[in-house]
């Protein structure tokens, strides 16, 4: 049905886009590390200084939010909805905006147990790190496909 293995004709990040510099308010946070790892796994070299990178990824802080999704019959939260989002943009060497501000977001649901607050707090911690990974993956895909689109466009 026409599917081919990627890399044999599909989307590959062009050479020019492979050298990037990460602009973030906290370069050592888990989110920044996750972004660096995801991009590195797809062949991007992170430059140490702004000058020797072709593109700069400008990364905003991660925003995490938790709200009640549904209530049980004791009118207590039966489910939580967790959202995590981050805004990013890409600039070229001359600091010109190449990819405008874009917001990536991830949504998760989880069951709540009012009688096991500590255990559910640990579940939230696991979900947060998974959401960070998915957010980084989403940003990586967005930029990779944007690069491919802008190259042929």
């Amino acid at each position: 049905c026409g599917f081919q293995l990627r890399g044999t004709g599909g989307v590959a990040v062009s050479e020019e886009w492979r050298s990037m510099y990460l602009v973030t308010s906290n370069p050592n946070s888990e989110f920044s590390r996750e972004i660096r790892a995801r991009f590195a796994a797809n062949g991007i070299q992170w430059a140490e200084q702004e000058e020797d990178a072709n593109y700069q990824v400008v990364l905003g802080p991660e925003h995490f939010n938790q709200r009640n999704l549904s209530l049980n019959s004791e009118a207590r939260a039966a489910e939580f909805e967790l959202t995590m989002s981050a805004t990013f943009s890409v600039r070229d060497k001359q600091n010109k905006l190449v990819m405008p501000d874009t917001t990536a977001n991830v949504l998760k649901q989880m069951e709540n147990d009012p009688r096991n607050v500590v255990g559910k707090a640990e579940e939230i911690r696991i979900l947060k790190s998974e959401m960070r990974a998915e957010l980084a993956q989403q940003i990586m895909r967005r930029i990779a496909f944007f690069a491919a689109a802008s190259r042929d466009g």
Partner: protein
Amino acid sequence: LPGDKELPIRIEADSALRDENKGITQYEGNVKLDQGSLHIEADRLIIQHQADDARKIEAYGRPAIMRQQPDVDKGVITARGLTIEYFREEERVLLTDEASVEQDGSIARGDVIDYDIPNKLIQVGPKQGDNGSRVHVIIPAQTAQQVQDNQKQDKQAQDAAPDPNQVADPNAPLPAAQAQAEAADGATEGQ
């Protein structure tokens, strides 16, 4: 310069015509007149004189130009106009049509300019009766150097009297950092 009047007047022109009974001499064709620091250029120049003293000089040109250095420490004044009338006793110059006066980089333009040299008064305005083109005056910005000099003087004055509301603000303003901090704060671990 004040001493110009005692100096001899030299005039060059293509042709000259002296009319004794009218008491005028008319010069034609790229006329140049020099007397000390006074210098006039025009297409046509008429000098009215009593006895042999030039009482009034009229210059016509496209435009006629008159230059003079009013004082030893002052910049040269350049006056232009289609018609320039120089009344030597009153030391007064009247420029009409496309008139302009320049000194030390500042320029004044208008239909009629009346320049009273001894009182150092330049009046720029429209012709009588019609409202014609408006007066346009450009005063040059103080050169960057002059600005520093002024500020240096002001600064010395200011250091003498410290500025009361100078609030030392050693740290980042609340809002910007607040927004970033609020982001991290958004996380609520437990429920």
